[in-house]
């Protein structure tokens, strides 16, 4: 008890100095980021974030709107490169390699780090072509049969095959919202990435579709590292092992999901999860 109080005092002291409380680092890190700052022109969006993401772990990034969690997520596969005015500093390592190094190709990085977006965004092509697009451009398969297998396997993993197996030639945009999002997940895992980034993947979906996606995330954890940004604290609690709380561009607290939701250290975290703001 005493020990715990000491820890809490120490953390509060950290917090006063703008330091992250909790356990931002882990032993077996897939992604390891240190002192990340992100600027949009002169506006700083992310302040000094240091965070590790472990192998085969689902880590949830939560926080009020505009807190920078999506911006941080998009640094991890260099999607921010497409925004001219965006500048990222600090160290971001994937398997120990700097992803912002000069010799790091963003295209290769994005093949290793897949992304699922907030709004389902299937290509205006057939379901088959949606899934086959990634493998095709990367030349992952050598013949049609292999590609067929890969597409089927990806659709099975995304839990979509049974619903679409009779209409693989139908347009992907004709599916329901939840199906479209699972199609996007299938499309992402067809490239066989190591990490999957998810930017509020269920925010545009109804509860049933959300439940299916959440189940899918738990399933995918066996093979992938998953970083998920979410607005729903219940969702974070259900799917993630660790949770990171962002506030105004700062990483406030990181910890085991259980601990964050039951016994948050920082009072900002507590205020947020108890619904007093955000």
């Amino acid at each position, binding site marked *: 008890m005493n020990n715990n109080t000491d820890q809490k005092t120490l953390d509060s002291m950290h917090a006063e100095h703008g330091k992250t409380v909790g356990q931002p680092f882990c032993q077996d890190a897939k992604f390891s980021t240190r002192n990340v700052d992100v600027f949009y022109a002169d506006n700083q969006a992310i302040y000094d974030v240091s965070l590790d993401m472990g192998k085969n772990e689902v880590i949830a990034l939560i926080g009020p709107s505009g807190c920078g969690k999506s911006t941080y997520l998009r640094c991890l*596969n260099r*999607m921010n490169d497409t925004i001219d005015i965006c500048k990222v500093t600090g160290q971001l390592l994937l398997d120990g390699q700097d992803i912002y190094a000069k010799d790091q190709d963003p295209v290769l990085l*994005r093949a290793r780090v897949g*992304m699922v*977006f907030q709004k389902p*965004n299937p290509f205006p092509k057939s379901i088959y072509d949606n899934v086959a697009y990634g493998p095709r*451009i990367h030349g992952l398969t050598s013949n049609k049969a292999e590609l067929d297998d890969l597409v089927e396997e990806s659709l099975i993993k995304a839990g979509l095959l049974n619903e679409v197996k009779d209409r693989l030639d139908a347009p992907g945009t004709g599916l329901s919202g939840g199906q479209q999002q699972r199609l996007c997940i299938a499309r*992402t895992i067809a490239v066989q990435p190591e990490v999957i980034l998810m930017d509020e993947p269920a925010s545009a979906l109804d509860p049933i579709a959300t439940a299916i996606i959440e189940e899918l995330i738990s399933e995918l954890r066996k093979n992938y590292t998953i970083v998920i940004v979410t607005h729903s604290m219940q969702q974070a609690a259900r799917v993630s092992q660790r949770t990171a709380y962002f506030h105004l561009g700062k990483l406030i607290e990181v910890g085991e999901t259980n601990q964050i939701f039951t016994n948050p250290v920082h009072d900002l975290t507590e205020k947020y999860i108890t619904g007093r703001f955000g």
Partner: protein
Amino acid sequence: MIDKNTMTLKVEKSLKRRYLKEKIFKSMGFISVTVAFLFLLILILDITIKALPAFVQTQIVLQVDLNEQDLGITQQSSVDEIRQVDFRRVIRNALKKQFPQVKKRKQKKDLYSLVSVGAEYQLRDLVLANKAILGTTQKVTFIADDDVDALIKGAIDRNDEESGRRVKDFKLNLIETLEKNGQIEKNFNWQFFSSGDSREPELAGIKGAVLGSLYTLLVTLLMTFPVAVAAAIYLEEFAPKNRMVDFIEININNLAAVPSIVFGLLGLAVFINFFELPRSAPIVGGIVLSLMTLPTIIIASRSAIKAVPPSLREAALGLGASKMQTVFHHVFPAALPGILTGTIIGMAQALGETAPLLMIGMVAFIVDIPQSVTDPATVLPIQVYLWADSPERGFLEKTSAAILVLIAFLITMNAIAIYLRKKFEKKW
């Protein structure tokens, strides 16, 4: 706090006003569309009514004696020998034989001018096509002169005073005799669609101008479309956002506003005088028009590309597609319908353009039908202008007919483009 009742009353009061505004706006829109449609209808009807006579040609049937001795050729004669023969004499003899009473020189002139000056070539082509008719007497349908044509179609009133009538009494008698004998026929005017321009209205055709327009637009399309689309894609997707690009953008917009005659001057100075490309040729016309069309298509293509949702780009980039793959696999196909719309507008503009082509000599009187993009040619709007400017009465109806052909050309072109656009849009 306003109480419930007064609030409801206030809303009700304002509702009437709001609905009235909507009603007024709707009816104004309806009236404008109706008026515009009415004017369009009047225009099209007027042109069509004026053009209809041009599609009918008066013809005169004559018995011609193709006596081998008279002509000085036999069935074994070569093509060159046949070309040397004076077939005009044969036709004149046929006319003289039918009207032996005509003796005076001036009257003879009237008699001979019943048929078109093109009649002799018609006869020659007939003989060249079938030498077996040499040595026989044949019934041949000749194109009538434009005055005869006008009289038969009623454009010249027979009941007018002789002094005010283009066809005098003597000639009128001759025509009426032919009419009584059933030697005057009115047939569909194939000539109009199969020949080039001529000084004689009855011989003038639209084919030269149609092909000229076709070649010119082909050159324009081939030069503009790839360049404009590539420029739009580069500016929208690849170019850095800096002052230089802003400057280029302003210039593209300005280029769209440059008077078209200036492009003609440029074409004359650069392509004809400096590069020595052929004068009056569709190749030069096409290049000049493509300069004019470029900004239109670039601007339309850029806004089409801009309208492609960013989520589509993100989806492709997120999968590890390169920028080039993202643009050409996803952005370009999604923008294609919009790009095609811009292309239709640009090409329609180019089709109707006259001024710059005047400068590069496409206004010349060209009888030959162009065989390639380097042959001298004219285009449809210029043909309209040339005919409208001609004094002969027969060209009046030809002018309207040429306008109809121009409109038909435009509609066909747009229909193809709209079909293509629909086809690409259908891909969900």
